[in-house]
């Protein structure tokens, strides 16, 4: 199986879905002539034309809302926010419109829109451009939120998202575009709302997703050198959240650490810990630890920024605390 980057996997997913279904189109800032600010849609403008690869003005509110409206009226838009930080401007369009229209009107309409948004910290972009605000979006029923950690999952999940009849926010961690893993050449889908065991182990369960999952895997590899066997579970989807594999693993290891790049307070980890407490209390042998970003706006200077973010050492330290 060829190894490709997550960037290529996303590009391939978009292209395959556009070839499969004429109602799939792309809209967003610099998706066309420029080729995508992260080069995901390079070549698309020439291949598919201006009708299906639509450059927009810098207008997140209408990108969010018009994509939803087009989806309500039969199309399958993939709307790209240049970064998830800018999607704050479209929060109302996404959570108050795209995610509400079906329920609010008694099931009369569906809104099969995909919002793609690169995000995350670690690239020295300063406080406003480095958010990992996934939990904000994952809070609301009616919306689906996914964020892959591998090229394989990115491709399969994005294809599922485009075919899904519901609004899906697809969050791409911008430090993961260059990671590579095996991706089949034949068609496959990865279901939304299914967690996945990415590494098997017996001593401790490490739960993560996206960039946090990669940090967790790196930590697990190092722990193995010390004879500690960590099982790593990838959430992949934040809503719907699939606790099945997490609980199953916890029932085996009795100990858990949750890794996320966002803030600890009211974060993904808080939810996972609460669910483990509610649904797996009898299996708990130690306090469950959370590894998350420190509670500061992210600074520019490289070392300073890195010190605020999650890393392998912090995960290893947390694991040792629960063992």
């Amino acid at each position, binding site marked *: 199986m060829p190894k490709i980057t997550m960037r290529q996997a996303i590009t391939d997913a978009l292209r395959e879905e556009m070839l499969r279904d004429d109602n799939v*189109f792309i809209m967003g800032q610099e998706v066309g002539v420029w080729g995508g600010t992260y080069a995901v849609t390079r070549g698309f403008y020439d291949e598919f034309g201006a*009708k299906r690869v*639509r450059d*927009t*003005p810098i*207008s997140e*509110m*209408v990108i*969010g*809302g*018009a*994509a*939803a*409206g*087009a*989806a*309500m*009226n*039969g*199309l399958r*838009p993939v709307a790209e926010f240049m970064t998830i930080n800018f999607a704050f401007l479209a929060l*109302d*369009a996404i959570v*108050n*419109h795209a995610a509400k*229209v*079906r*329920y*609010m*009107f*008694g*099931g*009369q*309409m*569906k809104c*099969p829109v995909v919002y793609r948004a690169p995000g995350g910290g670690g690239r020295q972009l300063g406080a406003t451009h480095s958010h990992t605000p996934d939990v904000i979006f994952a809070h609301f*029923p*009616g919306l*689906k939120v996914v964020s892959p950690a591998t090229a394989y999952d990115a491709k399969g999940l994005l294809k599922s998202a485009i075919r899904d*009849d*519901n609004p899906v926010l697809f969050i791409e961690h911008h430090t993961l575009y260059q990671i590579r893993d095996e991706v089949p050449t034949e068609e496959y889908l990865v279901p939304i*709302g299914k967690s996945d065991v990415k590494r098997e182990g017996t001593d401790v369960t490490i739960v993560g997703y996206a960039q946090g999952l990669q940090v967790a895997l790196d930590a697990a590899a190092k722990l193995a050198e010390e004879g500690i066997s960590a099982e790593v579970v990838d959430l992949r989807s934040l809503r*719907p959240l699939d606790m099945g594999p997490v609980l199953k693993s916890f029932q085996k290891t009795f100990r858990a650490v949750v890794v996320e790049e966002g803030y600890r307070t009211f974060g993904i980890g808080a939810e996972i810990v609460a669910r483990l407490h509610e649904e797996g209390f009898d299996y708990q042998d130690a306090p469950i630890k959370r590894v998350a970003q420190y509670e500061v706006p992210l600074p520019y200077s490289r070392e300073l920024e890195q010190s605020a973010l999650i890393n392998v050492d912090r995960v290893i330290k947390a694991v040792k605390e629960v063992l």
Partner: protein
Amino acid sequence: MDKETLLHWYRQMVLIRTFEQKCSELYQQGKIGGFLHLYIGQEAVAVGSINARQENDHLITAYRDHAHAIMAGTDVKYLMAEMLGKATGISKGKGGSMHLADVSKNYWGGYGIVGGHVPLGVGIALAEQYKGTDSAVLCYMGDGSTNIGYFHEALNLAGVWDLPVLFIVENNQYGMGTAVERASAVKTMVEKAAAYGMKGKQVDAMNVFEVHNATQKALQAIRKGKAPQFLEMITYRFEGHSMGDPLRYRSKEEVHKWQENDPIGILEKHLLDEKEATQEEMDQIDEEVKQEIEAAVQFAEESPFPALESLFEDVYANDL
């Protein structure tokens, strides 16, 4: 305009007003909850403009949305049932007064967030342009919507992409209790449209003929020139913003002055002056409408409330 059409318009205007009056009554009896925004005074806008649409044209509006639903052709009994939160309501009791829609009639709904539906209307139009149809979207909003970012981004994008949208601002002089001149740096809405390449036209919207004429021309222009159009309907709401509005922001004299131009009165006078209809014919329609509304209330009252199991239905398509 033939007699039959004019009497049909008259009937529609009276139906809207009677529906609203009944809603007011039911609200005061505690049978309608939440917020309730009445359309009384603005009937000529919905009736004049929606009668100018083609069947495949779409409608979308904000939260003062009962009239647009009636004009879309939805039976008032399903609207009344929604008001009462019943399972037979057009939105199955999930939406309420502000969130009526009837997709089977290309009515995409009323929306409670000021301006939030304007990009949706633009997107609905984008889908029609994409599919290559000759449908247009009639996207209604209040004057208050023209001060929010959504409005400006949506008009700009519609202009850039030449989308088939007719933006219809129902300028009823107040955004809640704040007069237009206290909320908008320019005095007219058409000035704002000009910034996005739309000429725009102000319409005496107490007069249903003026509204119909202007809408027809605008829709023709959209279909010919494939570009968005803009109408500013000068109108007035005779009631408060919503139920419970203390009405401290305008004088009784001002209200009375506008009421002299009651849109139903203007049509009535036209029908009598031109001898298109007799008072008896109109009285007959009034009576029929009254009965239709009473039947709708009875249907709503007798309908069941939604089963509690429906709470979890339609959060997602293909429920998880």
